[in-house]
């Protein structure tokens, strides 16, 4: 199951020219506001018609300007989760959830009970949408889209209207959705943290064009990404496996380049996770430091050095099979005489890694 998009749209103030493929998993459409993310997802949903191009799901064209194909939204079988949940105010949660079922000719993919269990909304079924909290509304909206038997899920900033606590409440459900169903997800977001946590493929949009595109680990550990993310948000994601939980509250994770000690996660030993390590939280040292409070000291190899516009340098590091980003000053890089191929040590404080940046994979 995969989606291919190649569209153009020209308005007085904006020109959009975007092409990418969204394979299974979560494809994040990332970019600042006004870069065309919502236009693209609305074009995929059929709520907006591009000037030219082609949108196909598994080679079935949804839109093809050359062949004159343009399926209306109700015949595209895509589940759309909007930023503002858009639950129907006159229907109970149960009838909101089952709304799409009557229109679907597909065999039901998931039952109401399964979806309620996945999203933790079984207790809300007889409530009215206006009595729900923001996080509950968004989970119901996800369930409603899922139950319409979609071939693909579209999510437009589903967490943007929620506060940090509600975001943290919903992220695990989205991970479960990604890991436990085979429905591909197109996920629009301007939050690097969400993208780092959820995305398997990342499409970075800039002024209506695709600026970067590829597997999440590769795109997020590319030093060039700093231009789009900003120096404070840049950071690589590392696949990791939970080894064990220690009595002092730390969790030990295995990564390809060694071990990581992090503040306790909920994941059970053996669980595959992904950890986001911000570039600005990584310290580099030529020798293995002794007598340091930081618990994580990983041997790494310098792959690239990229000068920033300010006093900083972004260093891409090979850590086992994975990539890390470190942000240090130009002065430090010069003093350490860093150059490509050098073996150094990356120092990461355990407590600098926020629980929000540890997700399943």
């Amino acid at each position, binding site marked *: 199951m995969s989606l291919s998009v190649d569209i153009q749209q020209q308005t007085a103030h904006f020109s959009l020219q975007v092409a990418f493929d969204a394979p299974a998993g979560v494809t994040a459409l990332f970019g600042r506001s006004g870069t065309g993310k919502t236009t693209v997802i609305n074009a995929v949903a059929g709520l907006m018609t591009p000037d030219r191009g082609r949108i196909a799901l598994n080679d079935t064209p949804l839109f093809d300007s050359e062949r004159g194909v343009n399926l209306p939204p109700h015949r595209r079988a895509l589940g*759309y989760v909007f930023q503002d949940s*858009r639950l*129907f105010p006159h229907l109970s949660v149960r009838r909101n959830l089952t709304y799409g079922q009557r229109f679907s000719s597909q065999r039901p993919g998931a039952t109401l009970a399964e979806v309620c269990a996945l999203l933790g909304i079984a207790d809300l079924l007889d409530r009215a949408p206006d009595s729900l909290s923001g996080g509950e509304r968004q989970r119901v909206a996800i369930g409603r889209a899922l139950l*319409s038997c979609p071939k693909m899920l579209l999510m437009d900033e589903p967490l943007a209207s929620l506060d940090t606590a509600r975001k943290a409440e919903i992220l695990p459900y989205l991970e479960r959705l990604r890991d436990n169903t085979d429905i591909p997800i197109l996920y629009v977001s301007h939050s690097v943290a969400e993208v780092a946590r959820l995305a398997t493929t990342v499409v970075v949009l800039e002024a209506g064009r695709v600026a970067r595109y590829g597997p999440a680990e590769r795109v997020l550990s590319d030093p060039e990404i700093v231009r789009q993310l900003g120096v404070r948000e840049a950071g690589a994601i590392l696949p990791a496996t939970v080894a064990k939980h220690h009595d002092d509250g730390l969790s030990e994770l295995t990564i390809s380049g060694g071990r990581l000690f992090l503040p306790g996660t909920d994941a059970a030993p053996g669980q595959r996770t992904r950890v986001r390590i911000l570039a600005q939280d990584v310290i580099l040292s030529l020798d293995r430091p002794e007598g340091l409070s930081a618990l994580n000291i990983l041997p790494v190899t310098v792959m690239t050095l990229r000068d920033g516009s300010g006093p900083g340098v972004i260093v891409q590091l090979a850590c086992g099979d994975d990539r890390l980003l470190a942000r240090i000053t130009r002065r430090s890089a010069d003093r350490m005489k860093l150059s490509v191929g050098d073996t150094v040590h990356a120092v990461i404080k355990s407590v600098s890694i926020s629980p929000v940046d540890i997700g399943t994979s």
Partner: protein
Amino acid sequence: MSAWLGPDEWQAVALSLRVSVLATLLSLPLGILTAYALARWSFRGKQVLNGLVHLPLVLPPVVTGYILLLTFGRRGLIGGWLEDTFGLVLAFRWTGAVLAAAIMAFPLMVRAIRLAVEAVDPKLEDAAATLGASGPWVFATITLPLILPGIIAGAVLAFAKAMGEFGATITFVSNIPGETQTLPSAVYAFLQVPGGEASAMRLVVLSVIIALAAVLASELLARRVTSRTSRR
């Protein structure tokens, strides 16, 4: 009721109720369609349609009645055709009173429903479409339930207007007891004859009661509907 009212008076009340209920119910589908078209669609001549719908509100009712007589009279363009094709005569018949009441009440009905349609967030309809609902389904399951309070309000306004319609009715279908003498026409007729004040007074009291009951009923209905369909 009929013991308190004289037979003539009762006849007028019954006729008025029948005319108003029919006028309201028959014009409701067209009223909803017109309100929806004015609120949502963009088409050439939209302002002309809007003006035509509102014309009865701003024209003197006598003028509206006379125009009806010209077009729907037995020699009128539409009236002649209706009689030839369906054997339906409107002028000076109670059926004509229904038409006159419906036309006079139409602007009020359309305005109320149009406001309700404009209050429905089109994003909800988009959401229904992405869940697989085709246009008619979206309308039936989302738009219609959400505008129901507006439809009820529009229908009650139209009913009240139809109950009170006088000028266009008396011009188009005259004031024939038992055929076209509606409640307001009867009040007018009783006031023209000596000793008719008592009859007129009873009808006036009854008008007030019917109007009040209609307003109260609509409030109750609208409240019940909104408690189910509250926006947020």
